[in-house]
């Protein structure tokens, strides 16, 4: 990053905040040393235009107007002090600790700078955190995915993008053209929600499946997110549906705890009972036969499926393939 540029932007900000009246370009050129040193008018104009955009991008409320009595109709600039400043806010030491953890959760992710700056702003009033609040907690937002930064910015600024995307089942990546609506994180993994332009429908993309660079393909503000799209809802759609059916399985006493915790009916053998039964019977809800069969097969000889036949057959098929039984 250019130190000189930062210095120039800071001096410009200070000059425009300090003034009550609008400053003309000429006045600004005299007020900021880096501008004064510009060799030509064009060089100054170009530099000033870029700097104005930069301040506006940061959310600095740059106003234009004119003090007619002084310089006719020439446009002048200043920063609206009231609109600039964060409203007064005081947090308790416990609340500062909570905000600090929320910012810390980003530390391995490319957006940690934005989180850190936000925290500093909120801590300006001088309150320091109560270190005993939230003690021992170490939260992490998620993966530091290279595609996150560009897609995050594209979602906020409304840029259409394209990128190469490869699902695990596909042989090659394919180019996707997307209008981003927002990003979301679930279980540490990042997703993009947006309009897939080639499919004409909304899609959820997993960022780790993006190969190569995210390219911006349009002007900022050209994407309009439909008001009824909720990013949380879109993420929720990826969750498994509620169980619709239930399977009856037999489990060896003491085994299959993972199944027992989700079972609706458990008839367990009394310890030391004389009934002679070697099995507990469980009713396990499911929404996908193959997912349930995968899960049941993983318990090996400790679990036997009684019904429905479709689940029983699916488990037998898996075991046969592995046992080498034709």
């Amino acid at each position, binding site marked *: 990053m250019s130190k000189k540029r*930062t210095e120039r932007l800071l001096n410009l900000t200070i000059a425009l905040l300090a003034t009550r009246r609008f400053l003309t370009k000429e006045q600004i050129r005299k007020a900021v040393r880096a501008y004064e040193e510009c060799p030509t008018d064009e060089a100054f104009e170009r530099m000033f235009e870029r700097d104005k955009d*930069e301040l506006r991008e940061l959310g600095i409320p740059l106003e234009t107007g004119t003090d007619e009595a002084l310089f006719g109709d020439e446009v002048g600039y200043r920063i609206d002090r009231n609109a600039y400043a964060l409203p007064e806010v005081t947090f308790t030491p416990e609340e500062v600790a909570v905000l600090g953890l929320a910012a810390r959760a980003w530390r391995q992710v490319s957006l940690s700078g934005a989180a850190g700056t936000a925290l500093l702003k909120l801590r300006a009033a001088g309150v320091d955190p109560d270190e005993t609040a939230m003690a021992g907690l170490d939260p992490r937002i998620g993966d530091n995915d290279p595609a996150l930064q560009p897609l*995050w910015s594209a979602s906020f600024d409304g840029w259409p993008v394209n990128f190469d995307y490869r699902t695990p089942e596909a042989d090659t990546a394919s180019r996707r053209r997307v209008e981003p609506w927002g990003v979301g994180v679930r279980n540490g993994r990042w997703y993009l929600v947006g309009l897939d332009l080639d499919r004409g429908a909304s899609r959820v993309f997993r960022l780790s499946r993006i190969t190569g660079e995210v390219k911006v393909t349009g002007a900022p503000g050209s994407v309009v997110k439909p008001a009824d799209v909720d990013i949380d809802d879109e993420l929720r759609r990826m969750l498994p549906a509620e169980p619709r059916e239930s399977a009856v399985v037999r489990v060896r006493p003491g085994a299959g705890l993972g199944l027992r915790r989700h079972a609706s009916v458990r008839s367990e053998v009394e310890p030391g009972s004389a009934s002679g039964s070697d099995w507990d019977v469980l009713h396990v809800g499911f929404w996908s036969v193959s997912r349930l069969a995968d899960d049941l097969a993983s318990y090996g000889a400790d679990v036997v499926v009684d019904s429905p036949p479709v689940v029983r057959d699916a488990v037998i098929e898996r075991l046969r393939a592995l046992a080498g039984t034709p």
Partner: protein
Amino acid sequence: MSTGGASAHLARLLALVPYLLNRQGIPIEQAAKDAGITVEQLDKDLWTLFMCGLPGGMPDDLIDADWEDGLVYLSNADTIARPLRLAPEEVATLLVGLRLLAQLPGSHDREALDKATAKLQEVAGAAAGMADARVGVGGGTAPDSTVLDGARRALTERRRLHLRYYVPGRDETTERDVEPMRLALVDGHTYLEGWCHRAEEVRLFRLDRVLALEVLDIASAVPADAVAHNLDEGLFSPSAADTVAGLELERAAHWVTEYYPCEEVAELEGGRLYVRLRSGDPEWMVRLALRLGPTARLVEPPELAEQVRAAAAAALAGYPEVV
């Protein structure tokens, strides 16, 4: 808002000034830590501030910064003494972090969390609405609140814990005494990290697999040589004692490459993949192979492949109609 380059740097400087103005004489290390930057970066920032100020360029016009003896003093910066409003992207980072914390059940700190969130939303104004609309947080697996509260109590009171812990890789329930070190929220799960007396090493315990927890009346004593996992590298720490298995995955099993750290992924013909997977527990490998069924083939080591075959054959014995 651009989050890199000169404008991000300007944003940080504009935030740093009000923060330092209200903490005259703060140690430079503390200020750097609070700002989430290195002392070297802060030193550079202070030099930059020192070079800036009101038009005129006279010494009186410039920001005055003094940090020679390691304590930071800042003055003559009245024009930028108030922080700039929060940008929507900044609000979004904090709100996402707060929502992540809010997924933890229990009453502990709930009030501070709710109030901090409400105040942030109020002070951010329209930016908070924009942030909410653009960024989502999906729910993770919430741990049982009794278990979580117990773990937190043990951490704050520095006491030893007794756990009944389920190990799904072995379908086994274990009893262990643990010296708690921290609670980490990673990938949607809450983990207790601690020195495990049974394993005689630092272990991570997923709280939703803790069946019962007791805070013991014994002061916790983490061995001096216990090293916490570097979670930036992921949850799994490789060890020389690990079993490494080679698997061939059909398309339907390619998800394995997204869920487990694979040491090697090579493409085979027909859309199949060859992967090498590492685990501290061979039993876990056998269960994974049983789960994958015909969509994968564990090819090495041969003795593990034989264990998979034998486990499948034993399981088939439960179905009398299969001969």
